[in-house]
């Protein structure tokens, strides 16, 4: 195994960025057409020694096996969701349904208010994305580009909050939302009503300026040159104007990644909506899906259709923007 070849280590970055294509199919077609990947092209033409050829074969086998393991469950889910009930039981392993049908999808939306759940999830995911990008950018900008006493302390505060497990703040946050003054029938002292419980705000507000968003945008703004802002400041531009007109256009890429990550987190969120949204009308796709597992114990068709529907938005976004998402995660995680 020569996967840890020094030359390869250095060239990986360049080759991975040259291969274009959004998603599996595009990347697969890119393999057939000669894309500009000079290094590997030259390597491929060079006569290989028997040993490195065996190495390449072993590599292909390994990654193919891993890919099949990661993808097979998803493909199988899709195929099962398109099978009529009888075929699910009889030909459980047939990859391609012999009588493809959309009945399972229809029953998901007819038997359960899944459309309503879908809209709820969209609002929660979208709301989380918008608020996080907005407040995360403002906070991140201040921490990266403005000098003020206490900056190190504020930053340390945000960072340390990333270490606190969500379970510790879960019950008190629930109580704070329930006792939120002047909302949901509450009086000035937060008594008498349900506060923010059973509202979209109960999910969106506590995470509206997540520490991660602030941190992520701070990292991003730091990659932009200080000089631009200083020049504008000398010209007498206000700080908001500098933020809005100088840095905002440059930070769009970072904001897009943060928006996607926030949407994804909001869409996939499970435990928190389960706790603060008790009204059936407020249920999210994930909570709805989890109740399927017991409701539809034997009818796997609708269950799999619901799973596909629940995964679709994030999957589509991921396939469109996978390069930026993966690089964004790598940037935030590995730095």
């Amino acid at each position: 195994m020569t996967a840890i070849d020094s030359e390869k280590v250095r060239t990986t970055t360049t080759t991975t960025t040259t291969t274009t294509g959004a998603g599996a199919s595009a990347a697969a077609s890119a393999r057939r057409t000669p894309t500009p990947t000079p290094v590997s092209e030259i390597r491929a033409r060079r006569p290989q020694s028997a040993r490195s050829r065996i190495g390449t074969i072993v590599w292909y086998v390994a990654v193919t096996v891993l890919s099949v393991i990661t993808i097979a469950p998803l493909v199988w889910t899709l195929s099962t969701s398109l099978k009529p009930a009888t075929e699910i039981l009889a030909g459980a392993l047939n990859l391609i349904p012999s009588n493809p049908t959309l009945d399972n999808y229809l029953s998901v939306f007819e038997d359960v208010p899944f459309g309503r759940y879908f809209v709820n999830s969209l609002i929660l995911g979208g709301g989380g994305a918008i608020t996080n990008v907005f407040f995360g950018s403002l906070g991140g900008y201040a921490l990266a580009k403005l000098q003020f006493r206490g900056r190190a302390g504020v930053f340390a505060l945000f960072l340390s909050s990333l270490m606190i497990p969500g379970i510790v703040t879960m019950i008190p946050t629930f109580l704070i939302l329930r006792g939120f003054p002047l909302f949901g029938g509450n009086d000035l002292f937060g008594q008498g009503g349900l506060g923010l419980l059973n509202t979209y705000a109960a999910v969106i507000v506590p995470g509206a300026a997540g520490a991660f968003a602030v941190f992520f945008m701070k990292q991003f703004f730091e990659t932009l040159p200080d000089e631009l802002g200083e020049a504008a400041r000398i010209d007498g531009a206000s700080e908001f104007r500098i933020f809005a007109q100088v840095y905002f256009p440059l930070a769009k890429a970072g904001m897009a990644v943060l928006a996607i990550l926030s949407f994804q987190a909001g869409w996939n969120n499970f435990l928190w909506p389960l706790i603060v949204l008790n009204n059936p009308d407020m249920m999210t796709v994930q909570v709805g899906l989890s109740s399927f597992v017991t409701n539809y114990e034997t009818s796997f068709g609708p269950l799999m259709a619901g799973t596909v529907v629940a995964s679709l938005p994030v999957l589509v976004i991921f396939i469109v923007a996978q390069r930026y998402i993966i690089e964004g995660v790598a940037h935030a995680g590995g730095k």
Partner: protein
Amino acid sequence: MSVQATTPGALPPGALPADVVESPSAGAGTRRRRDAANGKRPPHPTSRQMRRNAWIFLAVPLALFLVFMLLPMVIAAVISFTDYAIVGDTEWVGLENYTRIFQDSFFWISLRNTAWYTLLYVPLGLVIALGSAILLNRSHRAVRLFRTLFYIPVVSSTVATATIWYWLLNPQKGLLNVALGWIGIDGPAWLYDSQWAMPAIVLMSVWAGFGANMIIFLGGLQGVPGDLYEAARLDGANAWQQFRYVTLPSLSRTTFLVSTLLIIGAFQVFDQAYVLTKGGPGNSTVTMVYYIYNKGFGALEMGYASALSFVLFVIILIFSLANARLSNPRSDAADRRRARRHDRKAVSAR
């Protein structure tokens, strides 16, 4: 990873910043030093305005931090000493909740289950993430495709993933047991067998999460200087030796980050157990967060549940710190020790 994503802005899987494990104010410190070098606080015409603007920009994030992070921590600490139950009178019970924890057999069951999950999940997750990262750390046109394929499960929610696995793990018709049947193995009943339910959940979690950690490892691998491998090869090191003496030591920081993330995630496992097994069969998958959720929002014993959550917090903290000690000696303490030994040898040679 479950509870970490309780709020929309919370951490996406595998995105804990590396700075967390270092001194948090490192970046700001250098800036301050630069200021000091320029003479105390550069006299800037708009510096007072700038300070004011900074606080305006930070107002909402800070307000939310105070209301939804700091205040909850304080409330959690306070109610963990009471018998708060939403309904009825609340009394101060002192340490009673904490002493009760140690006599609560369900707590020990949930702790044992969580430990069992962690013990299986963390090493497996680490090895598979590192292995797949090494596989993909080469220049090859197909690398991008595979990177995407390995990452796709990460994007799906735990609930969707759990639903898929609920079907995969079906004892009779599930893909897993059918595939095992092909090679002559009679698969267990998985989620219906108290011995196999937890390993099944671990299997699912590894499948769902390794892509995110693989990306972090890939980042780490690309930071390993190529000369180290060249030097190792010149010294006649084989592939295993290169991995053992170059790759692993160079990755110690990344490994620490990933293992910390895995441990924190493992101790907070909830979604999978909730969707797949509801804690069963025979309580074999009641995890700590599941138990806290049940106590707090099922039995409404919020005081007791808060005490439980603080105990979990302390356990996570201890393991994170222990992990820091185990992962880091290679980079710091061991280096220093090695250097000292080297110095001594040099002195005695002279």
